[in-house]
């Protein structure tokens, strides 16, 4: 099998804009699901609302496209009611961290056996580019026309503090690393949180000096720094630039988890 065997081809064309990073994350996730050897009939994709949350509609498994922000609460019901099913959640930064923030921290606290893949485009894509809880300070959105004045969330720090067993961050540039991270997430019992920074040329890039799709991908490439390297720099007393995107594995641990297959 290959990840292509998981695509629901009769739904094409998809709704994503040209150059959107979400497709890359879907491919990486399906590659990981394929590599771990899960069967289509045992796997359920769940999502909330947003561009990112449309992903399950393009996958051949059973899938549940729910209400804005609530994907993890629905997924909790699926997982707890049938522990033979594998559950993967696709979500966006607004979906997960704004309207769904409370469900997010409680799913991490319960450490429920679900893999969460967040496509973080740092903006509300589907509704036309409003600010989200991860919009960087100073960035332009339709609701922060003078630059965002609120500090953003670090979703990985949040997931770790709340109790998730596996936490990692990559970008849509890091295809291999991202695939490996999702695979590690699928393999880890408990809640796995994988944050994937993605380019959104339509609503983020256009307003924030990334005129071409590749400009934003290039930015992610050049500003990404492995966690280990950042720690090394800190130990050596060297500053880590403020606009660094820390990537890598933030947590892999074995806390008691909920909904783990017996």
């Amino acid at each position, binding site marked *: 099998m290959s990840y292509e065997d998981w695509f*629901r081809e009769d*739904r094409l064309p998809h709704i994503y804009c040209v150059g959107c990073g979400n497709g890359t994350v879907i491919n990486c996730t399906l590659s990981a699901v394929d590599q771990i050897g899960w069967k*289509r*009939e*045992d796997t*359920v994709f*769940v999502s909330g609302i947003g561009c990112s949350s449309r992903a*399950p*509609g393009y996958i*051949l*498994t*059973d*899938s*549940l*496209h*729910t*209400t804005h922000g*609530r994907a993890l*609460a*629905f*997924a*909790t*019901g*699926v*997982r*707890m*009611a*049938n522990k*033979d*099913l594998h559950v993967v959640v696709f979500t966006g930064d607004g979906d997960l961290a704004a309207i769904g923030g*409370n*469900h997010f921290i*409680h799913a991490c606290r319960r450490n429920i056996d679900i893999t969460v893949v967040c496509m973080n485009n740092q903006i509300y894509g589907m509704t036309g580019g409003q600010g989200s809880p991860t919009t960087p300070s100073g960035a332009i959105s339709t609701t922060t026309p003078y630059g965002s004045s609120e500090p953003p969330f670090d979703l990985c720090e949040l997931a770790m503090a709340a109790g998730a067993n596996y936490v990692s961050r990559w970008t849509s540039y890091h295809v291999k690393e991202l695939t490996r991270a999702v695979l590690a997430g699928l393999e880890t019992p408990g809640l796995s949180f994988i944050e994937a920074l993605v380019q959104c040329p339509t609503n983020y890039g256009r307003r924030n000096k990334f005129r071409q799709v590749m400009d934003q991908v290039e930015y992610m490439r050049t500003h990404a720094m492995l966690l280990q390297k950042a720690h090394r720099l800190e130990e050596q007393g060297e500053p880590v630039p403020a606009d660094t995107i820390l990537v890598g594995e933030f947590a892999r641990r074995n806390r008691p988890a909920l909904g783990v297959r017996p």
Partner: protein
Amino acid sequence: MTRIEFMQGNTACAEGALAAGCRFFGGYPITPSTEVAEHMAIKLPKLGGVFIQMEDEIASMASIIGASWTGARAMTATSGPGFSLMMENIGFAVMTETPCVVVNIQRGGPSTGQPTMSGQGDMMQCRFGSHGDYSVIALCPASVQEMFELTVKAFNLADRYRVPVFLMGDEIVGHMRERIEIPDQVERWERRPLAPGELPFKAGPGLVPGFPQFGKGFGVHVTGLTHDERGYPCATSPSVHEELVMRLVAKVETARDEIADYEVVNPDAGQVFVTYGSPARTVQQVIHDRKESDVGHLRLKVVWPFPESALKKFRNARRFLVPEQNMGQIAREIERHTDCEVVPIPKLGGALHTPEELESYLEAGR
């Protein structure tokens, strides 16, 4: 062997759910419904089921929908403020045709209102509270026995019509203790599974599609967006939307008489009380105390879809008297279906109507 017990209404509701085969409960504590959750927390794990206390009512409603798609009979219980929070996901359950049971042990509102006092102020919210057009089923128990029986029935109706079904109790039935008979076995109407070759959202018998349970290889996409018969989003087609929503409404509305469940007392009477839930008890007392059988009583166990034909059972009716623990929510519904005089008898604050109060309305109409 039927078991005879002395039990609280909320406990009886939980027992009914267990007897019906409920194996998933997601909830959040709120007075006066909490005993339902507490009893489920004790019993479900022993039966191999799942009890989970979610972070709020939005999550509770979401969790039972998720559980239902794996084939489980799933339930939540709440009261007014929690019910309000559930509304968006209740609409999702309607749109996705997810069988589930929502128990609302009503208290006085609006807002936090009267947590420990009885009310029936959520009858319209249960019918119309979520956005868009839809139709649902609501049952109203008037005794501890009915808390058990109607909970069982709620699961059966939910599975049969693939809609959220509401058990709209009130604080009085929820908290009162009465003798109850618990049968060994209860009747069960299961969901009809999706047949080979059948589309997952195409009307089957009774306008209800077959159920494509998760994990059975159907590969179904379930979305709250307007969808075609395959389940694929199709949100901008006027005809697809119209056809879908009209079917969702029609599958419940056309089954009105099948779903109807009511009790008729003294069908020849000129003055007829119409009740649901606890106010029925006062009417029963009034009728019990009278020497003549000149007062009728229509006691509704199903309020939605409204069983309009039940009113016709009272051939000589001149007046329908409607005692409710709200300002006349169902009285107004009755007005829509009859030319007779309809007299709302509202009571707020949490206490039941007294027999004397009801007598005075009878006197006035003599």
